[in-house]
């Protein structure tokens, strides 16, 4: 083979073209391969199969009286479950959408009006707002108040004042029985 290559004596122009072609082809294939090889490393940092499998939490809500809140853990985050009193529901219902930073009706945020279920993580920078315990400050709108940077949420968990950009998110949930809710 080596002898043949020497004997053939390709003109220098052809040789240069062949060499360029090989250089570009090799570089391209090598670059694609390197890119593909990086994916397993990056993907290994995504949630693992066991983490994804733990994505539902069942909660017994039979013992939560009106006016009471409980905090449960879902995907490592606090979830607020509030059994709202009629006046809180009324308060949340009468706000004009135009006054809201992120306009959402209360009905869109609670499948059953008496049960408000929220991810208890401030949408500003991730602190847990106060307001779950009776003695906690609840902010100017009677819902939750984030002490880190002063965001105020109303009785529907919507942002009303302070730096947070969005309402407290509602996690996916369903009532599996009248007294049990499955979050996730």
């Amino acid at each position, binding site marked *: 083979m*080596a002898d043949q290559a020497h004997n053939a004596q390709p003109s220098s122009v052809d040789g240069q073209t062949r*060499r360029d072609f090989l250089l570009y082809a*090799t570089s391209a*294939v090598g670059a694609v391969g390197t890119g593909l090889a990086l994916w397993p*490393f990056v*993907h*290994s940092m995504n949630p693992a*199969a066991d983490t994804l*499998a*733990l994505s539902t939490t069942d909660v017994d809500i039979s013992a939560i009286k009106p006016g009471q809140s409980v905090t449960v853990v879902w995907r490592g985050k606090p979830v607020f479950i509030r059994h709202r009193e009629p006046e809180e529901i009324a308060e949340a219902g009468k706000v004009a959408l135009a006054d809201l930073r992120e306009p959402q009706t209360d009905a869109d945020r609670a499948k059953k009006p008496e049960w408000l279920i929220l991810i208890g993580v401030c949408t500003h920078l991730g602190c847990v707002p106060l307001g779950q315990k009776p003695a906690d400050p609840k902010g100017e709108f009677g819902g939750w108040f984030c002490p880190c940077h002063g965001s105020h949420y109303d009785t529907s968990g919507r942002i009303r004042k302070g730096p947070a950009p969005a309402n407290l998110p509602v996690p996916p949930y369903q009532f599996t029985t009248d007294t049990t809710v499955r979050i996730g």
Partner: protein
Amino acid sequence: MSDFKSNNKVVNWIEERLPIFSMMQHSAIEYPTPRNLNYWWNFGSLAAVMLIIMILTGLFLAMNYSSHTSLAFDSVERIMRDVNYGWLLRYLHANGASMFFILVYIHIFRGLYYGSYKAPREILWFVGIAIFLAMMATGFMGYVLPWGQMSFWGATVITNLFSAFPVVGDYIVTLLWGGFSVDNPTLNRFFALHFLLPFVIVGLVVVHVWALHTVKSNNPLGIDMKGPQDSIPFHPFYTIKDLYGIGLFLMFYMAFVFWAPNFFGEPDNYIPANPMVTPPHIVPEWYYLPFYAILRAFTFDLPFLPAKLQGVLAMFSAILILFALPWLDSSKVRSAKFRPLYRQFFWLFFVDCMVLGYVGGKPAEGILIKIGQFCTAYYFAHFLLILPLLSRIEKPKPLPASIAQPVVKAAALVAMIMVGLAGFGGEAQASSAGMPEFKKPATAFSWEGVFGKHDKASLKRGWQVFHDVCANCHAMKLVSYRNLADIGFTEDEIKAFAAEKEVPDQPNDEGVVNNRPARPSDKIVPPFANDKAAAAANGGALPPDLSLMNKARPSGPYYVYSLMLGYEDAAPEGHPIPEGKFFNHYFPGNAISMPSPVMDDIVSYADGTKATKEQVAYDIVTFLNWAAEPELDARKSMGVKVMVFLGVLTALMYALKRQIWKDVH
């Protein structure tokens, strides 16, 4: 000193402040390299690539590893089972360690053959030995991290080496352990050091390359470059040659990662560490075996120098003596090509190291002890007697005037040596002496071979056997119910399997812990609350967890298959079996506590397959293999794609290399 000029203003701006471009130009592009380097000179850059792969895979493994004795083993199994591509990262890393040593050993023997340790390259050589020592320490501590039986007992034996030193020995060992045995503090510090040392190696490699670029590369003729006609610029000639070598090497490496990922490992390391039980035959990783053989070669106490201390000193000396090599071998001629006598003794020394490695991997008994002692004596004689003598009596052949002559191709030889070394790893496996040959099923297991996959129908039947029979006594703690989706069960079927068992719930508001039905995300619920309860219910013998059984015994699938079918109703003549035990041809010691688990029609298969005992054994082995290697199907199919890709890339690089080199040859 820079003659570097660029048309790019940004480049010039940076260059004036930090001469990084001229440095690269000087040491990676223009760097004058002997034109006659053969393929043995590829192994330095290959080792550097391997170091990068080890650091990268290690970094991402560390993100998922827990260095606590109660979590380490399970966290490694979580990497294998749950972390995305975790099995790939771990197998790249574990096999990468062996690859790294293969490359570095070839690199060292290359240096020995061509006299690369001689003036003016002594410091280059010293730094290389320091890298080798750091690699050995790193490899040893890394092997401890999975916290299997070999991890634990390897750590115990190697740290105990230091107890051989008089007076201070025991204090050193206690200090290494951070306690009175290898335990959690030991594991924690080994993890910290295992993370640190690779970066120390990177620093040493920088110094190694610095020294190299100061004195320039040696070459197969061992004579100095005398002018520009003897050298070529590193780029593009050696960049492409190194890249081509990397392509070939990656194919060799990936063959192990995808098809024989546990070839270099020990089955015992898939058994969690147990400080109460030493495995019957412990061996270090293959790359330490020659030194291990030297350690064991000393059996006679001398005054003030007990055998144990002799062995330890000899083992350390075996490496440290390399530092004296530039003076022990005082011949002015570097390359063995022109040293007819040295060349023969080089190969004798090479064989001696191989035999030492073989002996180190076998139990210390019979003739092997004498062979090990002879080879140890020869090892030191090579350095202390033969080399000094040779330099005096040998008549070297005349050296050529210059190195501008055709390059020797040795690719075939490289491949041969690599395969040979791989076989060396195989030799390190424990022998299963005194056992009859394993039974083989009539049709081969479906997952064997290059394209093999687990047979879904057999897996489902195997689960049925496990569920109805095995699971009454055996746990399978590393597998979750949700994993059964892999073998074709529906979500509802999996929920039903899980709901058959109960697990403790979170404490309720009164602090009472109640049971709840298990969910698909739970691990398969063990039949007994704990190991003591399991042992008590089984006549004092703990039924082992089956999650990793197929990987935790040599030739695991065949062992389990044979064990299932290896019972005798009555113990044969001359093999008395204790009361309450059963005779099995394949169980070590023949007396097994488990009664024969399979018989014809022990289950009634849902898919109507006739449940002969051979069929039942076949199905349970298939299921256990899936439990041990759930990634196998994905691994092999990815392996095929990777190999095809590397084949194309390497062929392109070879063509490009030919094109670039055609005027030099």
